[in-house]
């Protein structure tokens, strides 16, 4: 220690200074970053008229209240919309991860003429702007008969059912997950399945018995990412489910905005409630979250 301080005597001082500057800068930015969230949460506990409207969001509150939450939950039927989201999200998530892992498995572990082509198609399709395809998708769903027994609508067609939203999510998101999983599976040694093959294990067994369990980290990462993306979907829920009461939670906030455009603190309360699941998932599973992004390093 003492011998090196002579040589690099100046350096630690300089870095300590620049470190201090960096720390200060980052702290200021972090505070700036939190302002919208903190103000929204703060506003959600205050009355809009007679309080924050007159004095601004950062004034001292006249009274803190939970009324906005009660009102938003009731008027926005948020319980119902949360259920809608779960009914769409859970099947979509399972199907996406299942489809993506079998395609990735089949394309990376077995040679086939079109394997690369399928992967390219999936990756490119995932980046397609949803607005480009939505009109034909809408028209297709409008014409595909669907038994009323299996849906919550009584039109007799797929359009307006949660199944239609699930199908679109699966069609779009399978691409990204296949891409990530195929990259991941390429890193698994070939000997694993080859040994199983020699032992006479069927392809089915190789997949469920060997490859799928090994993909658990990648699946956890993708599951976390896809959870937030599907939960946050605003577009498909709104255009395919025409009846407002069927909308998933994120699309339903738009209705609240239309109906009660005056009370912004009500909207702040609704936004806070809607944000809770994804923020909780993010903080609990941060490792997976960042891992998923870096595995694929792209989001469609």
């Amino acid at each position, binding site marked *: 220690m003492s011998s090196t301080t002579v040589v690099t005597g100046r350096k630690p001082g300089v870095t300590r200074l620049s470190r201090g500057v960096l720390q200060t800068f980052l702290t200021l930015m972090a505070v700036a970053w939190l302002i919208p969230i903190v103000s929204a949460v703060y*506003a959600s506990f205050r009355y809009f008229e007679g309080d924050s409207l007159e004095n601004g*969001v950062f004034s001292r509150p006249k009274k803190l209240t939970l009324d906005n939450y009660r009102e938003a939950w009731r008027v926005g039927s948020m319980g119902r919309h949360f259920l809608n989201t779960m009914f769409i999200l859970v099947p979509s998530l399972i199907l996406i991860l299942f489809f993506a892992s079998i395609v990735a498995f089949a394309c990376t572990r077995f040679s086939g003429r079109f394997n690369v082509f399928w992967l390219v198609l*999936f990756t490119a399709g995932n980046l397609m702007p949803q607005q480009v395809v939505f*009109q034909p998708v809408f028209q297709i769903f409008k014409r595909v008969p669907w038994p009323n027994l299996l849906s919550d609508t009584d039109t007799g067609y797929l359009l307006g059912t949660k199944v239609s939203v699930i199908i679109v999510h699966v069609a779009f998101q399978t691409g990204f997950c296949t891409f990530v999983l195929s990259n991941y599976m390429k890193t698994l040694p070939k000997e694993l399945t080859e040994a199983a093959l020699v032992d006479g294990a*069927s392809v089915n067994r190789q997949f469920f018995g060997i490859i799928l369990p090994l993909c658990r980290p990648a699946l956890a990462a993708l599951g976390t990412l896809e959870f937030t993306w599907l939960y946050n979907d605003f577009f498909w829920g709104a255009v395919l489910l025409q009846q407002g009461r069927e909308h998933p939670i994120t699309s339903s906030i738009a209705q609240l905005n239309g109906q009660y455009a005056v009370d912004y*603190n009500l909207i702040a309360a609704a936004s806070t409630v809607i944000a809770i699941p*994804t923020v909780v998932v993010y903080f609990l599973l941060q490792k997976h979250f960042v891992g998923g992004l870096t595995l694929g390093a792209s989001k469609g």
Partner: protein
Amino acid sequence: MSSSEPAASSGLPRGRRSRLQQLTFSDRVWLKFAIGIPVAVHVTFVWIPALLTAVLSFMKWDNLRPPSSAESVGFRNYWQIFTIFDPKLFPALFNNLVLIFFLGFCSAIGMLFAYMLDKNIRGGRIYQSVFYMPVVLSVAVVGFIWKAVMFHPQQGLLNLVIPGKGIDFIGDQTPIFQVHIPFLDSPLGVTKNFAALLIAMAWRHIGYVMVLYLAGLKAVDPTLKEAAAIDGANEVKSFRHVVFPTLRPINVVVAVITVIEALRAYDIVAALNEPRGTEVMGTLVVGSLTGEGGGRVGLGSAYGMVLFILCIGFIIYYVINNFRQAD
């Protein structure tokens, strides 16, 4: 997968042939279904609709009437949206262009943040979480949060900071700057409400790009940076000549993501939508297919194709780049 090829054909390399022979009939069926079903779903609901949009862009059709009533009109839809009969296309395209440059700038800030956080700053994890937090929120929720507490004319925070009479960030359509294009009747420009929207988008975009770069920076060999420091390179030089070049793969990903996100921006614009000034291609497509003036499927599809053509080049570049790297 290659079960259609005769297993005994002699031209195949040995390893491959033996593997094919080992696959039983049921294995081959399994593999066919494993690829077939997901591909069918994907193609039916992504690529075929894209193709149909291309076809519909040459048709005239009111979607409330049966498809048999559609008639071919050649390039008339395109002619219409590109000429003076339709004053919406160029302002929307201009807004998308502004978005590309603006989000590109935000990506640079995101890279800077990542570079700072990569220096093992105390509490780096906390900073990272804070900057990333807006990304886990729904874009619609981001829109409403900014609308309610930041942009609101009376209670909004920005109006408390900016002196003078309250500014209506959401509704104010007065342009900040305008560009006169010779062959266009009306000047193109950025309105105040669109600028406000950009701030909300930056809030979300920077954190997203930052996380991508953080991962890339972790992969940069620290001995390279040390070597540069010993050779007397300062911070800027070391970044430019050592760190930045090794980030090339991430740069490509971020560049493509930034452009595509800018081109297909929809949610936040729709969430904060006011009739004029903030129109982008995404809202233009949806707006002409639903809502007011709905039923003009031909025009809406033509808008959609413009958006598609703008995107497809970047998508192809990205995919080629990706799969070349993988090989």
